[in-house]
């Protein structure tokens, strides 16, 4: 499956936890980099060479040994070669950038696939979310580093080699002599590498600390005010700011400010070039030079020294990429592709017997729940605040564990995997869980269908029509541009849109008034004809019309029809009467 092309050119990477895997599908780009990189860097020597030739030709003209035509010829050759070299440079730059872009795209894709298929246990760890969010930021540093290493093979390797070859051809003794200083500069840079890395790490750590401290100061601003800790916190923030200032200056001093110094050291060899090179021109040196060769040699050497003095910087960026890679490497997983959920067969009976419900790792919240429901029925589930309604509802999507037996036409619920479950059961939770997308997308979640009838069902049609872009209006991050009631109804419309044989609705009427509640209920009644609906609610006004009521109390539940419970369960009766009196009707 390696390098399998998905539409839009994003690829699935085999063994995504190995760096080389990302290079595999990039053969074409790598070839272009190689061509551009080699021609450009070899061609770079043409600059100094032609500058020397031009100067020499001018000298010859002045001496009357050459004509303007000769100069024109040299100039045209110079320009032709130069344009070609620069074209190659463009090619190298562009394909290098594309390589980075490809890396980052594929890495993101692979990481995201891991996130979206993460198991409940992995998700449980509270830091997971934060880690994954940060990891995505590391991708860029990684991709940049990987690209740099690739292009630097040419930019440093080939370039240094071709400059050196050229210098050697002109005068090998002088080349050796003048390049003596480069290893010295390199050695100094390397001996400083450790302290530089340390200072850099300290700077990074302080920057991280500053960010966290800022977030903490802002997040808990009110807490600190209430407890009178603002002054103290400000003082502590000031301390971090001072530390940050200090480390930032240090890190810059050692990281960037040293480059010109390295350059000076590398340039030390120029003394030999001027002295011995001068002798060469005057005919008293090791080889005979004309003036053009002298200038070529000087300018070539200057460029070589510049390149050599920045190589320390290159090592830094590679190191940075390595750190990022080590952070994200353990997060990569092999690509997962789940089968699409099928609409399961229609369920005739739901049977719950002697079920106890618990959050993973905790004592059961509910025990001894039993009831049966058939196709066409709406079952109301209620109880006082914190009676375990929500926990019970979550059992159907596997967020809570159960003991005992829940069967759908004889199939035990826990035997089903997530995909099979989602083919049979639709669940609407407390949280509307809206995405930052349009109203329409939030309902359909990728399905192709009209939404008008759905919006009508949840009594949102007029409100949506009044929005600036109708159903194409954006709902904001997490739906925050809508009211709580609108969010809940969109969530309900979404659940109805993905209707399954069993629908579990946790508090679908929160934040809607009674009239709307009744109307939506009638729609649900119609929907229920060929399915089973469990309606979890703290509002009991509709419960007389339910086909069955599960009343949760004292860690267990009683099942019956409304009238029966009124008679047999005084606590149910009093809950109902209190609400009928109207006093607590809109208390949550």
């Amino acid at each position, binding site marked *: 499956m390696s390098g399998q092309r998905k539409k839009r050119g994003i690829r699935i990477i085999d063994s995504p936890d190995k760096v080389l895997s990302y290079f595999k599908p990039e053969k074409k780009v790598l070839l272009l980099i190689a061509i551009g990189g080699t021609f450009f860097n070899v061609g770079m020597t043409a600059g100094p060479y032609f*500058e020397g030739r031009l100067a020499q030709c001018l000298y010859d003209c002045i001496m009357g040994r050459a004509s303007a035509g000769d100069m024109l010829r040299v*100039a045209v050759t110079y320009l032709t070669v130069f344009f070609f070299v620069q074209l190659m440079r463009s090619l190298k730059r562009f394909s290098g950038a594309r390589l980075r*872009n490809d890396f980052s795209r594929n890495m993101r894709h692979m990481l995201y696939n891991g996130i979206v298929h993460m198991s409940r246990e992995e998700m449980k760890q509270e830091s997971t979310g934060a880690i994954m969010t940060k990891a995505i930021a590391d991708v860029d540093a990684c991709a940049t580093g990987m690209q740099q290493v690739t292009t630097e093979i040419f930019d440093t390797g080939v370039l240094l080699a071709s400059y050196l070859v050229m210098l050697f051809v002109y005068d090998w003794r002088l080349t050796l002599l003048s390049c003596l200083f480069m290893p010295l500069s390199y050695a100094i840079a390397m001996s400083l590498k450790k302290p530089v890395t340390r200072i850099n790490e300290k700077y990074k750590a302080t920057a991280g600390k500053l960010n966290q401290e800022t977030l903490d100061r802002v997040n808990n601003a009110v807490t600190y005010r209430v407890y009178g800790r603002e002054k103290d916190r400000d003082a502590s923030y000031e301390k971090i700011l001072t530390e*940050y*200032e200090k480390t930032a200056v240090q890190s810059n001093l050692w990281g960037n400010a040293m480059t010109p110094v390295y350059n000076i050291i590398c340039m030390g060899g120029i003394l030999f070039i001027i002295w011995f090179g001068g002798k060469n021109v005057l005919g008293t040196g090791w080889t005979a030079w004309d003036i053009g060769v002298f200038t070529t040699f000087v300018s070539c050497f200057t460029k070589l020294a510049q390149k050599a003095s920045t190589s320390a910087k290159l090592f830094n960026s590679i190191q940075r990429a390595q750190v990022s890679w080590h952070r994200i490497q353990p997060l990569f997983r092999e690509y997962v592709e789940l089968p699409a959920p099928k609409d399961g067969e229609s369920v005739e009976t739901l049977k719950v017997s002697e079920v106890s419900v618990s959050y993973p790792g905790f004592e059961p919240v509910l025990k001894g729940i039993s009831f049966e429901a058939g196709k066409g029925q709406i079952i109301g589930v209620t109880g006082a605040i914190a009676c375990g309604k929500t926990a019970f509802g979550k059992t159907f999507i596997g967020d809570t564990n159960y003991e005992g037996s829940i069967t759908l036409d004889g199939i035990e619920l826990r035997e089903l995997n997530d995909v099979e479950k989602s083919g049979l059961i639709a669940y609407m939770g407390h949280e509307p869980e809206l995405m930052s997308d349009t109203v329409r997308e939030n309902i359909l979640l990728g399905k192709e269908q009209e939404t008008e009838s759905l919006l009508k069902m949840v009594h949102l049609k007029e409100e949506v029509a009044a929005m600036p872009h109708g159903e194409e209006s954006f709902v904001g991050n997490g739906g925050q541009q809508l009211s709580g009631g609108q969010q809940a109804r969109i969530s309900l419309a979404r659940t109805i849109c993905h209707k399954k044989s069993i629908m579990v609705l946790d508090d679908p009427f929160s934040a809607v008034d009674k009239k709307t509640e009744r109307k939506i209920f009638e729609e649900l009644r119609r929907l229920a004809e060929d399915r089973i609906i469990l309606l979890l609610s703290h509002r009991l006004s509709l419960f007389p019309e339910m086909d069955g009521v599960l009343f949760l109390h004292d860690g267990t539940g009683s099942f019956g029809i409304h009238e029966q419970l009124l008679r047999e369960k005084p606590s149910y009766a009093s809950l109902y009467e209190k609400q009928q009196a109207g006093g607590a009707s809109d208390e949550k």
Partner: protein
Amino acid sequence: MKNSLISIIGKMAAKSKGTIALTLLVIVASVVMTLFPPLILEQIVNRLTDREAVAVTVALGYLGMLAVSGILESLQNVMLTVMGQKLTHNVRSEMCAKLSRMQAGYFAKTESGKITSRFVNDVDAVDSIFSNGIVGMFANACRVIGILFVVFYKSLGLGILILAIVPFLFLMTRHIQKKMLKAQMANRAAIGKVNNHVPETIRNMRSIRSFSIQKYMEEKYDVYIEESYRALEKTNFYNAIYSPIVVCISSCVIAVMMVCSSMGDAMQQFFGITVGSAVAIIAYVGKVFGPIEKIGMEIQSVQSAIAGVKRINEFMREEEAPCCEEEEVHGTEVKFEHVSFAYDPEQPVFSNLSFTVKEGENVTLVGRTGAGKSTVFRLLLGLYEPQEGNVTVGGVEANRIPGDRRRSFMGYVEQQFRPVMGAVEDQITLFDTAFCRNEVEETAKLVGLHEKIMSLPYGYDTPMERADFSQGELQLLSIARAVIAKPKIMLLDEITANLDSVTESRVLDVLKKASEGRTVISISHRIHEKLQQGRLITIGAE
């Protein structure tokens, strides 16, 4: 321009005149020094053309010039960083001080992520405007002028040639940069979506799983990364061609100059070229285009960072809580006298509310959701001021109680525990070093958390992790945070709302112990039932 970035910078500039002058001096010196080495090289070449030997001193002079200009460049780098860091330090300090003066309502209406981004990203933008923008432009403008000066001095013809090309080059630079900016904006928008999609996925995991829409989410993500890919590809294209074009232009200039010079004495004089100066001038041509390219880039970075400056100014100009004279408190009687309050004038929370809670009394506030029970607490804590009437504690208006004394006077247990960044001990002390370890342990024992905390890897010094504590234990920490200062009044919000019944009774037991001998005002029926005493005060219409 009070309370704006300019005033902060002004204040800072006044304090560090010396540093600023030194920085400017270093910049100018560094620019001037870069002009010399090619001139010396010219001398060398000219001597060689005349078949004269080069003196060692000249060679040393050349290297010396290079060294001085390199050191000045380093120094300039360092000075800029020092100044930039000083600036951001000052801005962040002022912003932090502003936090303490901000109205409490600001924190309710503004997401903390956004405020943090003002502190982090926008201040960094200020730094980039300063060091890469204004100062960088100054330095590069100096460079261009300096080089042009030398070029004109040496070769009038070349000067005119360059002057003719510069406007064209500058326009092209701006054109490409504008295109790039557009692509960058598109990329930033796409990256925003890409980055947002991950936390959104994690937040909506239940829906994703229960509808089995992993594939759908993945495809959506792919669309976003593709958007960013396309935009980046555009930027990369311009990036890839820009600098090669500039280099080609400069080589054209060199070629034209050389060919012209070879066409006879008149031209040669016009270009003022000897073999030596040809070498020097070629070096200058390469150097003049670099700074022009950079100036374009700097204009860009100022433009894109200016939004950050605007946001900081908005932040600094947010309305502040009125500053009040602080007063000493006498007694602990809590009194609401005809208090009316509204967060938003259109929607009053309550009006004409009056009640008194005597010292040592135990009362429960009741009322429907939204009646303003929690608001009563916020007024008592001095976070807000009533529009009408008086809220007094011990005879003093609630918002005049000195901030640093408030804690030993009123303990507030919130609905939800808010962990702060630090060790477990800090959760209780809130970094107040006035409490010694002994007191912390005593308090932890009182709320029944001592054993639990000791079981953590580093005891009280263990870094706080929410996951180490259960919901109930977090509430106990919250109580410990309040009672360690031995407050005379305890304000208890609906603190058991999210707890199961076993934990709830544990928390209530602790509360009962902790509130002995104190005035207690609570919002919870369960507390009322448990503590078995006190009266009810109804807030709002029943």
